[in-house]
């Protein structure tokens, strides 16, 4: 049985690794939820890389229909071709374009299929895929062909919880919620991305980061991807670790909303005022 263990740049918690392996063994889709920036999409890439499989990504948008993932019948092209008597017009198969799901089914080798941000689509979208994900096959009435997966792909589905997913769909998935990484976990993640970083800088960065994250009333909490960007900004800017105790340089990298930035400013000011007061006594 294939075993996923995380990769060099993708640090997964044990719980997540367990869920991935359970999903792979039971051949069920794995539904991943979690705060934005906790590496939901990255997970599929890491799985594909560590298992040496090809990754197919189906990005879901608000206009995506379930049908798009299976196949599209390009009628218009066929009509045009028929006008000019192009070759092979009578072969409908030529005008059937497989979607990502269809592609994954057709592959000889096992692939990793990522259905990214399924909650972006219409409410009924997941229900339209029940059969296809269950049986790993679909029927093309135009050609009378049944596309059946040669090897069941490993299906990873991500959701940002913008919409509730239907129960019938949930019942068929393995579910995992990626909790926000705690400080030791975050340290491992940071080190995986920036191996040469000094321990002192990591410590002060993470200390400052969790202080900001725990501020009350933040509209958008900074996440893993933001802390990684921030470290890069700090490294390029040549900021001394000591400065992080007094101020938040490049706060705009961490906080994306004006109100949040103002609040962070007040927090640092408040701390300064406390130090001043200490001098008075």
């Amino acid at each position: 049985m294939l075993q996923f263990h995380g990769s060099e740049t993708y640090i997964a918690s044990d719980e997540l690794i367990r869920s991935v392996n359970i999903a792979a063994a039971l051949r069920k889709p794995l539904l991943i939820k979690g705060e934005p920036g906790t590496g939901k999409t990255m997970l599929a890439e890491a799985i594909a890389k560590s298992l040496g499989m090809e990754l197919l990504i189906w990005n879901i948008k608000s206009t995506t229909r379930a049908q798009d993932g299976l196949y599209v019948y390009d009628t218009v092209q066929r009509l045009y071709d028929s006008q000019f008597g192009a070759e092979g017009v009578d072969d409908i198969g030529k005008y059937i374009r497989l979607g990502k799901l269809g592609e994954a089914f057709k592959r000889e080798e096992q692939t990793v299929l990522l259905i990214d941000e399924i909650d972006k689509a219409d409410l009924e979208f997941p229900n339209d895929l029940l059969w296809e994900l269950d049986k790993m096959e679909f029927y093309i009435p135009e050609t009378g062909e049944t596309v059946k997966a040669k090897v069941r792909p490993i299906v990873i589905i991500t959701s940002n919880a913008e919409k509730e997913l239907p129960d019938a769909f949930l019942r068929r998935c393995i579910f995992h919620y990626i909790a926000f990484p705690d400080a030791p976990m975050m340290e491992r993640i940071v080190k995986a991305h920036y191996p040469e970083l000094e321990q002192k800088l990591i410590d002060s960065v993470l200390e400052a980061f969790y202080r900001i994250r725990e501020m009350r009333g933040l509209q958008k909490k900074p996440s893993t991807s933001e802390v990684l960007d921030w470290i890069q900004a700090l490294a390029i800017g040549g900021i001394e670790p000591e400065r992080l105790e007094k101020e938040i340089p490049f706060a705009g990298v961490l906080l994306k909303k004006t109100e949040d930035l103002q609040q962070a400013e007040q927090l640092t000011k408040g701390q300064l005022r406390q130090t001043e007061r200490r001098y008075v006594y």
Partner: protein
Amino acid sequence: MFTDFLYVLRNYGMKTSFNEWNSLMDALELNLNEASLTEFYYMARALLVKRESDYDRFDQAFLEYFKEVKTVEELPKELLDWLSRAHEQTPYDKAEVDARFEGLSLEEIRRMMEERLKEQKEQHHGGNKWIGTGGTSAFGHSGYSPKGIRVGGPGRNRSALQVAEARNYRDFRDDSVLQIRQFQVALKKLRLLSCREDGPKSELNVEKTIEKTCDQGGRLELVMERPRKNQTKLLLLMDSGGSMWSYAELCSRLFQAVNQASHFKDLKIYYFHNCFYDYLFTTPSCSWKDKISTEWVLYNLKEEYKVILVGDGAMAPSELLYRGGSLDYFHSNDQTGLYWLETLKQRFPSAVWLNPIRESHWDYTYGSYTIGLIRERIPMFPLTAAGLEAGVAVLKKGETGL
């Protein structure tokens, strides 16, 4: 197959179905938990829990079911069976076992495990938990099953019960996010499609294409059109007064459903306390600094807005009928609540009232008099999925005269 665990789960409000339970059985059959209770905990959670808000319920149910289990012998027989099977199943394990424990029977090994368990309890725990923090689970007895539990760095050594007991997901427990789907589905029906003036022509009109192509003597001519977009604008007015607190969860579900519905062209939400007068509020706390003039709302929003009022409608008659009847002592009202209700109805002909009080109680509950007065003016529906659906159907028709 220790089915009572399924019923414990269901007792804690989880909607675990037979399908999911079967998957768990399959997983056990494949021995994915590697004969360890910790692994079993995570495996069952991944398979049976479908939303993070249910993690806490699962933890509680798991605790209840497994907490009585103090010794290995008390474990459900099926789990024990799997345990004993594990070492026979994988040849790798067997070789390992044979090498180290040659001549030991399963019984003896089990006894050793129990002893070790006791030791751990005294050394590391002192409590009545039956698995220590020592880094092995009851079944992952070191050396016995090398595949049992691969424990490494900190944070990994916790046993299933400890993980469950920590109840890390308590904060995620948010009962209100459940079941909003039904509301969402009902709201989806509230749409009024019409062509947009702007935007690209991206939809093929088949009828017109055929017509045009025929006109051209068979030369293909495609007719593209602008896709139709939902034009519905919604104004939601919610009562957030004291008597509504008992329905807070229900209202919050509706609120989330409305808020997440992305198909409205515009959505405005205001709050009021029992009945609204000169002012509405932009926050549920209805504090005076967040006020907005009702007149401003009435005259700045066009009449095409559909209005959904949410409230129990139960109040003292004076609040609805008297000038100065407002509950707010400091801000007396010049016009009666009924006047404002009628003005609203005149401005927005398409309006419904959703009432969280059960429909069968409307005629005799506290406030039945005011509820009746409101119902004479604005069609009232119970705040349920079915009620919302009926309300939406009425809103779609346009004018909601009685």
